[in-house]
Every structure is written in C-alpha cells, then in structure tokens.
C-alpha cells in the first residue's frame, strides 16, 4: 500500500508486576498502519491483545518502545507528522482521542453515556469541540442515527432502552461523528447474537470503506478478522507470532500456533 503511515508501533511492550514478579503482557511489537487500512489483532484471551490496543490508543504508557502517530499539523499546532504519542501533552492526547480517533469498547455501556439520550451521546464530541448550536447538533445526531441504521425516531431515548446491537451501533456513531481517521475497536461484536453480528459487520465494512477509516480491531473471532481486515497480527503470550495479509495468514498459516488457531474454528 502506498498510503502514508498513520500509526507506527516500534518495539512496543508493557510490563505488569504481579506478586513482585514482572511479567510482560506484550513486548517487542512492530508494525505500520497506513491510512485507510484495517488491521486485526487476533489471538486467544490473555495473549495481550487488549493491552496492545490500550498502548496504541495512549490509554497505557509503553514500558518498551514507542507508538508514533501522524498528528495533523492544523489548528495552529506545530510539529505534524509521525509523533511519539508519549511526547504529547495530556490535553493534546485527549484532544486527539476525541477528534482524530475513535474507540469502540467491547461493552457498549462503557463507551456510552447511559444517563443521556442517544442524540446527546452522538453530540457529545461535537459539544466538546465547541459546537453550541442545538439545531445543528440535532441534525447531525439524526444524520448519524440513520447512517448506522438506527430508528431516527428513537433519538431522544436513553441508550439503556436499546438492544445490545443497537447500543453497539450507537457507540460507533458516537465515535465517527468527528470523522476520525483511526478507530480502535475492542471485540466490537462479542456478546451479540450471530445475526446481529452479521449486520454490524456489514455496517462496519461499509463505513470503513466509505469514510476511508483506518482501524485496529482486536478480536478472537477469526471470521471478523477475515471479513474486515486487510492485515492480521497473530498474538500469543504477548508476542506477535505471525503477521501478514489476512487471506495469506488464514489460508496458509506458517506458525504452528496460527495453524492451530485456524484449524480450531468450528464449521457449521
């Protein structure tokens, strides 16, 4: 791919101390993510997928290596180009996280504000950026409700009254409203039943395609990776054992663990 590099992980690692013993949750992870590219991180639970995602999104600090992101240089902010996110001020990182990034949580309840309506959820990022026109916020909210195939008539309902799949779609809308370039997703389809999963995946694929989003998707579901991702990173015990184009990795797994993973998928 000839697109510019958006996110670069250079030897990223994180150490946790448990019972006085240091233990690497993930270590030595290298990859480049280009604009518009979708990367899936697969592996069994406990393999450090989510830790890696949190490192990439700046929610945890790296104990080893660094994460670089192509910070936009507009808004009077100096120093665009690939920047170590650890060198950004907290204010700048938070700004980045709510404009140029999205984060779709595994549990929609964590990512949503459950005590305000769907419309307010969608408008929150815009208001944080200084939008102060109710009519425009509302129009935007309705637009995004339709975009993620939610019933626009329910814009004033609390997210608690939504089904699991609708909550997840609302969470996606809430993240995409600022037109981010990069979205992090932590098991976005887990906990949904199969038909709802399929619809959500369809929607995600469509949005990623239309908006030219880059995404990092953590999942243990190989089907999700197959459907959405251009490239796959296979993790085991905190290290990347294999990475490559999705079809290559799944059709011709090289590492014994990947072979095991691919062969253990149930076929109906």
């Amino acid at each position: 791919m000839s697109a510019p590099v958006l996110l670069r992980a250079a030897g990223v690692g994180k150490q946790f101390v448990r019972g006085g013993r240091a233990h690497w949750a993930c270590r030595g992870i290298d990859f480049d993510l280009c604009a518009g590219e979708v990367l899936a991180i697969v592996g069994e639970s406990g393999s450090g997928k989510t830790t890696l995602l949190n490192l990439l999104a700046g929610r945890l600090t790296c104990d080893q290596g660094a994460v670089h992101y192509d910070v936009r240089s507009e808004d009077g902010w100096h120093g665009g180009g690939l920047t170590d996110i650890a060198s950004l001020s907290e204010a700048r990182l938070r700004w980045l996280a709510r404009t140029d990034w999205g984060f779709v949580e595994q549990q929609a309840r964590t990512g949503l504000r459950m005590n305000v309506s769907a419309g307010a959820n969608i408008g929150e990022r815009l208001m944080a950026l200084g939008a102060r026109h109710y009519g425009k916020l509302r129009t935007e909210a309705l637009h995004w409700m339709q975009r993620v195939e939610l019933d626009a008539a329910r814009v004033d309902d609390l997210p608690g009254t939504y089904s699991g799949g609708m909550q997840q779609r609302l969470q996606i809308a809430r993240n995409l409203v600022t037109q981010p370039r990069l979205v992090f997703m932590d098991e976005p389809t887990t906990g949904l039943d199969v038909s709802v999963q399929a619809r959500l995946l369809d929607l995600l694929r469509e949005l990623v395609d239309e908006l030219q989003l880059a995404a990092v998707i953590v999942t243990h579901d190989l089907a999700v990776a197959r459907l959405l991702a251009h490239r796959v990173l296979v993790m085991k015990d905190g290290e990347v054992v294999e990475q490559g184009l999705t079809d290559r990795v799944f059709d011709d797994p090289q590492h014994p663990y990947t072979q095991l993973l691919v062969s253990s998928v149930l076929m109906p």
Partner: protein
Amino acid sequence: MMEEAHYNFAFLDERTKKMIRRATLKAVAIPGHQVPFGSREMPFAYGWGTGGIQVTASIIGRDDVLKVIDQGSDDTTNAVSIRRFFERTTGVRTTERTREASLIQTRHRIPETPLTESQVLVYQVPMPEPLFRLEPRRQESIKLHALAEYGLMNVRLYEDIAQLGAIARTYDYPVLVNGRYLTSPSPIPKFDNPKMDMNPALQLFGAGREKRIYAIPPYTRVQSLDFEDHPFEVQTWKHACALCGSRESFLDEMIVDDAGRRLFVCSDSDYCSDRRAAGHVGSQQAVEMSPAPGGAS
C-alpha cells in the same frame, strides 16, 4: 444581644481563620476555581450554611455591618439563626438593609438592590461541583476543570432541550467565570445569574460539607452557558408584587386558599419594604390562576 465571652471572636480560632483566608485569597486569584480547605465542624447542621458561615467568620471585622438572607428574606429561620450566631460571637452590628451592610451572607438569592465595591457577598453552597451528577469520578472532574473540557455540561443542556423543549434548569444554572472555569453559582435562581456578571462586589462561595471555597472577584465576566439557538433567559412573571407592585424583582408564589389563588410577593424582603416606604403600592390581592396558568415562565 450580649456577646459571648467564652468564644474567640467570630467563633473560629485564629489559626483556622488564617487557613480559610489563605484559601479565600487563592480562590480570588483564580476566579471560579474551587480551592479545598479544612472545613471545621460548626454548631450548625450541614445544609444550614456551614461553608458560608466559616467564610464569613474568617473575614468579618469589628467594623463590619452584617446582613444575612435566606431565599431573599431576612426573617426566615436560617437567616435569623445565623445572624444571631454572629451577633453573639462577634458583637458586630447587623442590619436588614442591603445598602447599609458591608458583609452579606446569602442563601439562594442575590439582593435586588445593586451591590457596591465596598460590599462582600458570601454564598452558602451545598454542592460546589457543577459537573456533579455528570461525571461521577472526582479525579476525572478535576481533570476536566484543569483542561477546561466543559462539553459535558452542554450535553446536559442538550438533554434538557431534547426532552423538555427548553433548558429546564431554573436554579444553580452553570456559569463560566472569566472565560475559564465552569462554576456553580450555588442554588440561586437563574434570574440572579446576570447580576453576577461584572458585579462590583466581591463574591465568595463556601461549601462546608464539600470543603471547597471559590470566588468571583469584582468586575469579573460571568456567562451563563447556553446554545446559540436557545439563548439563556431569565424567568419572567405576568404579575407584579402584591405588596410593592414591582415588576422587576424575583417573585415568590404562595397559594393562599383552597381555591388555589396565588399571592405574588417579592422574595427580597428588604427591597420590597424599601419600595413600600417610597410610596409604591401593589394590588394587595391574591390572583385567580384559572384558567390559564400564569406563573413563572
């Protein structure tokens, strides 16, 4: 009334007063920012203005003239108790007249009579954190203040308009002080919010239970939050005060009989009696409310 000889002047010991003054100075230096302080047990229950009393006690001097109001009135239980407390522990002169007072402790109102540079207004604050109920984590709300990320407050206002058609907040209406800190004006009616803006008097806020002091120095910009297409508005009444005929002041509404007739009177008792002394007269009558509701809108 006799001054108590067994207590220090203004009840608190000098070290405590010094600590509170220090917090107050910091609060004045950073308009709208909540400064933590070591709130003391007072001989009042929480909710009776322990924060305001501690601020008053630490700044009151022998030459001060104190006025205490509760919901605009000088003669409600809370106001009377606090006034008597300071009479007994300081012996300073007290007054009911806004113009004569140098120090005014208030609960939930700002006097209608404009304040001057030589006056200090002390508010009693139950909950100093305007992001309370929006952001449950204290640590996180401190961070939001530090980074001036106040979109959340507008989310609340958005929600009001979406659910109710208008911003429903009628008291404790959030303000932005000096273009920087989001601040709770304490539960004053939003009617009083515009009076805080560029007020010549020093405004101090004490929250005893929450252990916070904050301030709005004289001539500081105070904006009420709103949306461009739903601007901030204060309450208006279709009626005038039944006693003094004022149409400008904040009116209390009282149901006076079983037929539901209402009496509208000024909430600021000193303002009302001033006007009556100057010869203004109201209708002296309760009003029939049916069929159309005509209260505050």
